[in-house]
């Protein structure tokens, strides 16, 4: 069974790029166009292994989503990776401190993405 990744970004192009790259890595993809949508989707008992989560979103920020998920034991095994254009070193450190498992700084490339995923899921897809 394929692993499932939820791609959350308010920009459709970014979702599409991530979808293409993750699909190429053999993942089953789900998409959400905002934080609220992402939370609804997760609560609708869609099983997800990984979230690529944009930070700057108009309705609910990625950081807030991460915070809610990390406060819920039901999502203890869920891997959350920041998928953001916030490139500051301090930003990355903040994310990692607040429950993100890794950070992918936009612009991304396939090599960096596959490294991060391989780090989080060593057994492969």
């Amino acid at each position, binding site marked *: 069974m394929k692993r499932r990744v939820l791609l959350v970004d308010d*920009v459709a*192009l*970014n979702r599409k*790029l991530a979808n*293409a*790259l993750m699909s*190429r890595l053999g993942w089953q993809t789900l998409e959400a166009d905002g934080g609220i949508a992402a939370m609804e989707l997760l609560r609708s008992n869609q099983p997800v292994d990984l979230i690529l989560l944009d930070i*700057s979103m108009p309705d609910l920020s990625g950081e807030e989503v991460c915070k809610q998920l990390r406060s819920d034991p039901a999502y203890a095994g869920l891997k959350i990776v920041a998928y*953001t*254009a*916030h*490139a*500051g*070193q*301090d930003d990355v450190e903040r994310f990692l401190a607040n429950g993100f498992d890794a950070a992918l*700084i*936009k*612009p*991304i*490339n*396939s090599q960096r993405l596959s490294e991060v995923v391989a780090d989080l899921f060593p057994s492969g897809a």
Partner: protein
Amino acid sequence: MKASQYFEHMGIRTKLIVIFVAIKVIPLVLLAWYAWQAVQGLSEDVSSRAMQMAEAMRTTQQQTGKTANDDAVRALDERSREAIESLTTNVARQVADFLYDRDKDILRAALLEPAEATYRRFLSGHNRELFGHGPYLLAADGKSWVPAETFKDDNPVRPPLNDNAKDFHTRPPENYGIKSLTPLFLEMTYVDTSGLEKVKVQQGDLLKPGLRDVARRENTFIRAEDYWPALKKLKPGEIYVSEVIGPYVPTHWIGPYTKARAEELKRPFNPEASGYAGLENPVGKRFRGIVRWATPVEKGGRVAGYVTLALDHAHLMAFSNKIRPTPDRFAPIADPASGNYAFIWDHKSRSISHPRDYFIVGYDPESGQPAAPWMDTELWANWKASAKPWHEFQATEPAFQDQSLKRKPAPESGKSGSVALDCRYLNFSPQCHGWDALTEHGGSGSFAIFFSGLWKLTTAAAIPYYTGQYGASKRGFGYVTIGANVDDFHKAATDSGKRIDAMIATADSKLKIEREGLQATIAEGLGRTAFGLSVSTLVMIVLVIVIAIWMANVLTKRITVMSGGIRRFQDGDLSLRLEAQGQDEMAELAKSFNQMASAVQDSFGRLEDARHSAEEANRMKSEFLANMSHELRTPLNGILGFAELLEMELEDPAQREYAQAIRTSGDHLLALVTAILDLAKIEAGRMDFDLTTLDLPALLTEVVGLQKGHAQAKNLALELLTDKLPDVVFGDRMRLRQVLLNLINNALKFTTHGSVTVRASRVDDRVRIEVQDSGIGIKLVDQQLIFEKFRQSESSITRNHQGSGLGLTLAKELVEHMGGEIGVISTPGAGSTFYVLLPVGRSTQSDEKLKGQQA
């Protein structure tokens, strides 16, 4: 710390207190000390004056007493001396008169018919009253002799009238003793011209009866008379007088002869066998002697013979042995122990009348020669050494030889029983020589001598009798001496002196008590003064200190308030203003402070506003930069991501190359954006540096490893050489990594063949990291410019080599922010060497920069 330094470190309040206390307390203490000194000085003065007065009074009293006493003593002594000298002279005169009477007797006798009857009649007509004492008995206690019968005077005489009562003084009849009419002469003889006695009439039993040839000495009285040769030379009317001649009465005892003393000395008690000694031994043997007068008897105009008269020596004795130079005047018996007695000495200074009969010079009846006198040790030894009879030894021995009280009687001399006093040889009695001198020219006099433990006045008067041999010197017959205890003369004065001394002592002790009282009063007063002075001084000192503290408080309160206010202002209470009461300097100071505070507060307000504005602007700038980055990265994500997808999915190589071109351009743009944003961040001071010690060898290995692929792709050698490298340097690992990657990347980028070498070594306290290439090199003019923004050594190269143009600028900024230094050494065409110097330890520069960024 020195006193002055202490003072400098004091607060104003303490200084004020110290100064005030100093200027008040020191004079106070000095004043108290001065007052104390003055009072003490006064009391000492009073005390010492009182002492001096008392001392002066005492001295005066003593001197007065002493003077009076001395005068009295001297007056009494002089009177006594005069009285005694007078007595002595009188006695001497009486003796002389008596002797001259005997001259008359002999001359009258020469006119008589030399016949026994005539002579007997003559003798019986020449008698003289002598006084003797009755029998004495040893007292019951054996210590003294007492008269067998005591004479009592029971007829007290009282003044008949009041007018006689003052100083009424009466004496009982003089007690000379028992009176007896005694013949003057013991013998009367008529001697013919051949020396044969023709007529002899005797009285008493002293002289032997029978007519003898007196020309021969052995036929004379105790073989001692030698008048015959003298008689033959006499012309009618001339008189011969012999010396005193009698057998010496020896003694085995000198001094009081009592039974008690005999027992004490363990000697037989036989006073009768010893010489008579007045009250010392009233039962002893008496000295009996004669003085012979002779004168030629004329018959028909020629000397037919000589008549002689032998005077009983007892009559001479009578002149001296009853005299006492005391108020008693006379005594029936002499008391030799008292020291107050009279002696008679002949013209040769030999004792011829003495209360102790054994002291009278006499003759040895066997030899007819003088008995040996009492001698001192030296004379005795000399005499014994000479082995001569005394008279022969004496003939060559000088008289009065070194007489001194220091000489002592020879014990053997005393024991010999022959102790006659021949003053010429009595060398342990220096008064002998004195008497000799006093009477040498016929006069009289006295001197005092310390003898037998008493000061004695001794007087001597020549006996002015110059008949016969006695006319040879002015001394005449000899001399009378009377001694007396000096102390007895002035007993009254001494007694009054003692009374005066006692009075003075009483006055003195009273004065002493008064003086002690005065001193005690002064001491008490002093004590009170000292106490009062101390207490009042202490009270005043305490008062002064209290006032000093109070004044200092008043004076410094406003300063304290002011400095407290200033401190509060310093601590941030900028709205604080001081109270500015009054018109004095303190008020001026407060006003000035308030003005300054207002100005400072205004400035602070403006500064605060400016800071707020600057911070706001900075915040907005940061926000803008962050937003810029975010907004630029978002489209780049799409461009680069889809370009990569295209590149991966396109099958036509030409199309794939186009897609690759898009991605390369996007990458370039991303690099440019990143560099611009980093630079902007640095310039805005918003780049954070995580400065720690980092593992340099590991970092170098990592960055060189990262660029291996790039080097291999260009067929270039990439080497890492390290030398004596410290394990750690100080810096931000990520930024240093960025800088080194940039430098190696540039080196590889601008090198077409050859090699790139990375070297690292320690230079002093810094680490030098070099990146050397064998590339195109950089012109000297460009070597500084390449670190400036948007500069490259050659614009054409930029296009060929895909540089942002901002890499070195950023590297320079980063290195400098880590406290390091960056530079280049290059030869165009031969290659370039970029170097970075970083501190091994934490540099102060980076410290300061860090602080600056954090603020």
